[in-house]
């Protein structure tokens, strides 16, 4: 991998640390809630809201790491039998299409988040504002776009070199 590729990988890993922290927090929060309910008959108010938000952050922030480690389900069966040049060509098109999709999602979630900020939408019990978590998805998808753009560039360069 090139040095730029390594930097991106390190960055994706670092962002994934935040996702990992969110999962840990989810686990601890739910366990604390169960304990409080079971032994003291007083569940933690808003635990339910928070768990959903933490899950949202966990998934969004690990999008890049999941993509850069090639962990998504994909059918390799056919493409891996093709000549190398065609393979890289297909990868470039795939990355470009994926980039377009996630650029659209980044843009639209940003609009959605802004909309929620103006309308002042809050969560059910804690009355936490919802929009920062929507911006969490925007951030995760935005970073994913950077990675997809880089993967597209790499595949095009490979085609050109062959």
């Amino acid at each position, binding site marked *: 991998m090139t040095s730029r590729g390594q930097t991106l990988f390190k960055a994706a*890993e670092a962002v*994934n640390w935040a*996702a*990992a922290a969110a*999962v*840990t927090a*989810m*686990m*601890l*929060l*739910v*366990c604390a*809630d*169960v304990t409080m309910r079971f032994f003291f008959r007083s569940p933690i108010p808003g635990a*339910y809201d928070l*768990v*959903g*938000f933490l*899950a*949202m952050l*966990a*998934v*969004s*922030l*690990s*999008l890049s*790491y*999941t*993509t850069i*480690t090639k*962990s*998504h*389900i*994909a*059918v*390799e*069966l*056919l*493409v*891996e039998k093709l000549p190398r040049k065609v393979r890289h060509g*297909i*990868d470039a*098109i*795939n990355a470009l*299409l*994926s980039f377009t*999709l996630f650029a*659209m*999602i980044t843009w*639209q*979630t940003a609009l*959605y988040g802004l909309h929620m900020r103006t309308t002042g939408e809050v969560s059910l019990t804690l009355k936490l504002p919802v929009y920062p*978590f*929507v911006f969490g*998805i925007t951030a995760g998808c935005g970073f994913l776009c950077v990675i997809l753009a880089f993967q597209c560039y790499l595949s095009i360069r490979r085609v050109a070199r062959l």
Partner: protein
Amino acid sequence: MTPTTVGIIGIIALFVLIFSRMPVAFIMTIIGFVGFGYVITFNASMNLVVKDFYTVFGSQSLTVVPLFVLMGQVAFHSGISKRLFDAAYVFLGNQPGGLAMATIGACAGFSAICGSTNATAATMGAVTLPEMKRFDYKPELATGVVAAGGSLGILIPPSVIFIVYGVMTQQSIGKLFVAGIIPGVLLTGLFIVTIAIWTRLRPDLGPAGPATSFREKCAALPGIVETIILFAMVMGGLFAGIFTPTEAGAVGALGTIVLSLIRRRLTWKSFVESLMETTRISCMILLIVAGATVFGHFLAVTRIPFDIATWISSVNLPSWAIIMLILVVFFVGGCFIDSLALIMLTVPIFYPVIILFQYDPVWFGVVIVLMTQIGVITPPVGINVYVVSGVARDVPLQTIFRGVLPFLLALIITVLLLIPFPGIALWLPGLM
């Protein structure tokens, strides 16, 4: 073009593009987006994608996914599998094929704390394959048994497939989990019988090991205690209605961490590794659910699922024939497409049919899981076989695929038993 035509083009495009090795989750989203935009408007379609992603990522019912994945990952990294195998070995090792039977027993045990097939196959493979090699087991039996046994991971609860199916069809995840228990025990038994028959026919496959004393048997028992505690806590809590699935997952994950810490089996490094894996796997699962949701909404506006359901009911086939047709689609599809992706693609189409013919949705969930188990071991795309070949690098893929064949038979028998006797799956959840 009528919406139905657009829908059919969408489905065809999906099955063609899937072979471009673009992530299946992305393809489903793109086709869903374009199709929905074409039928309604592109503005509505952009809203749809954003709402679906937002809803799935923050879905309360899907918060169970990372928690149960974490539980399995910690169990994977902390040596529970080795102790399960040692315990099963002292009881079964002196039989012909006994090590293979012990592997199945340990797989079933590990499945009770882990919800995925590949994690179960990978962890059991690492533990049991060297042992079977040491006792001169033929590679086809040794690798086949791990690939097939690993598939129990999704039948015996917890199970990622049950969670995803439950969310898609709005069925109780707790009931689905409990419905997997008896079929899981039945299949474990059938796998062991398969080994017994196969090694009787070909004794060279797995020679009997030395007998163990009563004292050794007693000494090995503590090895399964932690698994029993965790399973009892998680499933007992769910069954009794004390925990929601999310709570069961959180308690299970923390419980596994605490027990591993007490045994001094969990290092900081392996904990971090478990977490990184957990986020990676959960993100993969949730993204494919989000993609399937977008695609499902597109299909819904084309009315294709309803058209198919009405059409099937009009051709006057008996209901068992409909089920057989669906099973054939799953079988053939499972050979080429990853099983999780296949479920996501087909459930929106088949589920209305199942409901129309008044089959129980929980029962259908169990059938789908069994078909998935078949899918993960059949060539050319059998993820468990690839996982096992990653552990046993000296064994050619064909050998492993040959080794899973007898177990495939046991799986098919279980599916066929479930059709006339749905009670195998439905009796236990009926008590809840």
